[in-house]
């Protein structure tokens, strides 16, 4: 089973992917680290921010790891590296 979700890229991740958002088709049942790997396979440069990024699904933080997530059509995934400027 796959599902269509919108991915939003913020801060450095928008620069690395060259995108602010995209719609992708992914497995509807997967772990957060599998979701992340799917994104990295589309945008290999993302791997540079792997250890310092907040991943959110339906506007809720999810730790990157063996955490199961069920995606539904139209869900919002967000990739959020920290900003440090001021």
């Amino acid at each position, binding site marked *: 089973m796959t599902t269509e979700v919108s991915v939003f890229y*913020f*801060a*450095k991740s928008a*620069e690395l992917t060259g995108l602010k958002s995209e719609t992708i088709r992914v497995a509807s049942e997967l772990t957060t680290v599998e979701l992340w790997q799917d994104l990295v396979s589309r945008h290999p440069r993302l791997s*540079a*921010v792997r*250890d*310092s990024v*907040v991943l*959110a699904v339906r*506007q*809720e*933080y999810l*730790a990157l790891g063996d955490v199961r997530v069920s995606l539904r059509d139209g869900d919002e995934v*967000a990739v*959020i*590296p*920290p*900003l*440090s*400027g*001021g």
Partner: protein
Amino acid sequence: MAEEVSCLKARLMEKEKEIVALKNKLALEKNSLIDLQEKVTTLPPLKLKAALSNEDIMRYSRQLILPEFGVQGQLNLSQTSVLVVGCGGLGCPLAQYLAAAGIGRVGLLDYDEVELSNLHRQVLHGEDSQGQAKAQSAAHAVRRLNSTVECIPYHLQLSPENALQLIQQYDIVADCSDNVPTRYLVNDACVLSGKPLVSASALRMEGQLTVYNYRGGPCYRCLYPKPPPPEMVTNCSDGGILGVVPGIMGCFQALEVLKIASGQGSSCGQQLLMFDAQDAKFRSIRLRSKQASCAVCGENPTVTHLVDYEKFCGSAATDKCRRLSLLSKDQRVTVQEYKSIVDNTAAHLLLDVRPLVEVDICHLPTSLNIPLSSLEDRKSEHIRVLKERIGRVKEQMSNESQVPVYVICKLGNDSQKAVQVLEKMSGSEVDFVTVKDICGGLMAWAQKIDPSFPQY
């Protein structure tokens, strides 16, 4: 004789007048001078205010009649101290609103001085404060706005040695800093001293805000256990920033500080608020409570005292540009050496690898512009133009030697990366070339060769 005496008397009177004028001037200056702290000292406790004065009531009347705030909220504010770490794009509007609202004490910390390129976003400073310590300049502006607020400017760099002593003396800390090591330092110091940390950041057209270490919520390390690799961090002087973006985030910070200080409490303790200025959108990500495994606020912390944050992050605690050194000496030329190449009209290609938006600001007349990112991605239309231009230079050359390519950017970092890319391409993707980096880039050109060339 009599004439001489009257002449002397007249001169004496003149001098006496002068002394009076100087004394008045001195008194004025003294009045406006705020003691700039070069090191952390112990502050006396804030004076408790039992009731509002008539002047307070008039000044704060519009917020006093808010049911959420009221007299008790105002009294609470007057008994709260806030440390503002960084008096830049975030710290200026934050300090301004805290002072206007009647916070009891505000510590303004910044090690830097005011520069012309700060003024578009650091709105407490003015043209006449260029060169002044930012902490001092911000303190002057705050004093003008509300002289009843106790204002303490610190002209120093926050460090593992002074951070705890300083932060322990304040009730709330606001992180308005501009670099990663300082963000971890402030976080750890707040966790170790049990202070809520109202943290905001901004770059380009984006902003973020979270209140860390607050009512069971996460700290900065819970969210970001590892610092980003230094080359993944963009600062404001490299990435750019529209002044109003940190303005909005600094105001948001002020709002959360005022809610905590007045007793209403913040709702950003387990939220990451994001602002997208381009789309005029706010998004809010729900965060989890603090992580049991966190190195500083978790159940078995490994960080029990402040450490070396520059080492931890692999970068300096400043937003000034880093100087990369990727090349050997014979792969680089100075701006003076490049000037003589131009003067001798030696055939060569000058390649400017800055983004187009920067080339629009200024460029050297003969340069070919191909951004570093296009070279790295081997953008086909750019590679075609590059091949063409190398071919044209080759035609101008009388001997069979390789075409010399000189690479320039703003400060000489990206140009070094571009030299490495071009060396890989030489002889395969393009004709054989000899590539050299122009040290220090266009800013060195402006400083050492052509003073009429703009600096940015």
